[in-house]
Every structure is written in C-alpha cells, then in structure tokens.
C-alpha cells in the first residue's frame, strides 16, 4: 500500500522515499488510534520495503513531533478496570507498541525522524526508533515519566543506552528535564540541526542522498551497526508494569488529567 490516510497518521511513497506524517490532534499523543495506524504502517512495510530507500517520520501538528503517550486515554481506560486487569491491559498495550517500534527500528530502509517542537516521552521513543534524527532549533526532548511514578515504557531507555552515554541518560531520566535541540546534537542524539521550520526539508535532502545507495548494502550495514536491544526492551516492559501496579501511579495520572496547572507538560 503506497499511500494511506488513517485517523492518526498518513503515508505517501514517492521516488524511493516514504513519508509518514503524524497528524493526530492535539499533539500526536500515542494512544490506541496512533498505535493502530502504526501497526497498519508496519504491516505495509513488507510491500513498501523493496521500493523504499528512506522513510521520513514527521509531524503535521503545530506544537511538535509528539507529546508522548495519551495519558488521558490511559487514565480513563485504567480507571474502569480492576487493579489486576489494569496491569494486564497496560502490558498488552506496551507489547503492541514495542512490536510496532521494534519493526520500525529494524526496518530495511533508512528511517529519518524530522522533529520540531515537543518530542516527549513516547514521542521521543518513536524518534529514537529511527536511524537518524533531524531536529529544528525549537525542538525539545524529554522523558518526564518519573513525575508520574513511571519509567519510559515504549523502549526509550534501552535505545538511549544503545546510542548514548550513561551520565547523560541519568540526567534526562532522573530530572525529567527537557533539553533543546542544540544540546541534543552536542551529545550525539540529533544528527543534524535545522533552522526553525526546516527539519522536514533537511530530512528530505538526507533521504535524497540515501536513495543513491544500493539497497542490499544499505540494509546489511544498518543491521550490522544497529542491534535491537530485545532483552532490555522486555525487561523495560516488566519494570513498567511493576511500577504501574502501584496506587501512586493512578493518583499521579489523575492529577495530570485534572490539572489546571499552567505548565502540566513540565516536570
């Protein structure tokens, strides 16, 4: 399927490049709608792959790439369930997310995340599943999960461990602070910086370069350099579910959902 338009995203193939556009109001929160569309994309990758050298993942939403997991949906869904069913429900969701993100991580074509604005939590984790991150100067990256009594659950920590130094990861995770694109580039997280609003253009230029290379060689090189940390990813799901079972987490989610705080997105 060379093009598709869903509730939360769409994709379009043109001349060796697939553009996957996230477009789910308000800020590409990752809940069921986004997950189902990502699963459709993963299923379509089989037919897209032979003719795709590069895939650009970017956002149509004004505020940024993605604000992360849909915490409102998570809270309201969990609130209806018993404690036991809540944990098994969240585990099921995480396993589906991991399957989708792992497939994107291992895709035989080069994946480029073009990031602007907020790239938080689950949104940051989607960007980390990509091979290359291009970010405009106004992009911000964060893992604010600790303020909810959780750790990132969509594969973020294993992927950061794969790519970056532990001291930097500790700073991000244990303070929950957001960092700007320049800082992200200085530590090697962001490959290229773009002027405001120019991340997609630069991602397209990068994709046009990638298209020139032999597909078999490109896929072999990527597989060699980019191991998928499956064991750590499974362990992350287990830790997340253990933490999710604690009453403090539902209380923190409730507080976020009901917040009239001027800055609910800040840790």
């Amino acid at each position: 399927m060379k093009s598709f338009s869903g509730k939360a995203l769409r994709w379009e193939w043109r001349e060796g490049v697939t553009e996957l556009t996230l477009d789910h109001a308000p800020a590409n929160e990752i809940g069921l709608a986004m997950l189902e569309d990502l699963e459709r994309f993963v299923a379509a990758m089989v037919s897209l792959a032979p003719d795709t050298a590069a895939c650009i993942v970017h956002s149509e939403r004004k505020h940024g790439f993605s604000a992360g997991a849909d915490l409102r949906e998570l809270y309201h869904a969990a609130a209806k369930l018993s404690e036991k069913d809540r944990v098994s429900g969240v585990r099921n969701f995480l396993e589906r997310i991991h399957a989708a993100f792992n497939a994107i991580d291992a895709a035989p074509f080069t994946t480029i995340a073009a990031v602007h604005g907020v790239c938080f939590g689950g949104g940051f984790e989607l960007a980390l599943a990509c091979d290359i991150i291009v970010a405009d100067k106004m992009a911000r990256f964060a893992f604010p999960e600790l303020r909810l009594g959780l750790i990132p659950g969509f594969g973020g920590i294993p992927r950061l461990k794969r790519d970056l130094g532990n001291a930097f990861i500790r700073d991000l995770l244990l303070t929950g602070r957001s960092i700007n694109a320049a800082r992200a580039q200085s530590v090697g997280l962001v490959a290229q910086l773009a002027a405001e609003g120019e991340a997609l253009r630069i991602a397209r230029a990068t994709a046009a370069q990638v298209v020139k290379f032999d597909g078999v060689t490109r896929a072999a090189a990527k597989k060699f350099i980019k191991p998928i940390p499956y064991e750590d990813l499974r362990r992350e799901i287990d830790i997340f579910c253990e933490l999710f079972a604690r009453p403090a987490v539902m209380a923190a989610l409730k507080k976020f959902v009901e917040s009239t705080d001027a800055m609910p997105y800040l840790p």
Partner: protein
Amino acid sequence: MRTLEQTTQEVLDLASKHFNVPAGSLAPEDDFFKKLGIDSLQTLEMLSRLENHFGIELPDYEVQGVSDFRTLASRIQSRL
C-alpha cells in the same frame, strides 16, 4: 557580562517579538502567561528561544512556579 536589568530587558524584547505583543508593553513584574496568552507548550517554545538567545540551558524545573519576567530573568542570570 550582562546585568540583571539588561537580561530582563532582553527577555521582555524576545517575548514581545516572538509572541506578537507590542514592544514596550511588557513589564518585569508582568505574568507572562496572562500577558502573552500562552499555554504550557508555548512556554516550552519560549524556553527554547531564551536558551538559544542566551546560549544557556535552563532546566524546566527552574521555571516551575515562575510566572513573572523578572524572576525568569534572575533564573537566566544565574546561568550566565
């Protein structure tokens, strides 16, 4: 090295320019949420602009609970 007054003025000028508020209409003691009409995601945008302009990093938790330009400028000043 900038003085706090200079830093404060630069914060006001930057906010005025990027959030389309008339130059000179902002005062150090103003609440930036109310005067600029911004939400939390736009606050993050302002944080990025301030960091890029002053060449610093300003962790979000330094801004938590801060709503006036003068206090924001003092947080920036301590990182110059």
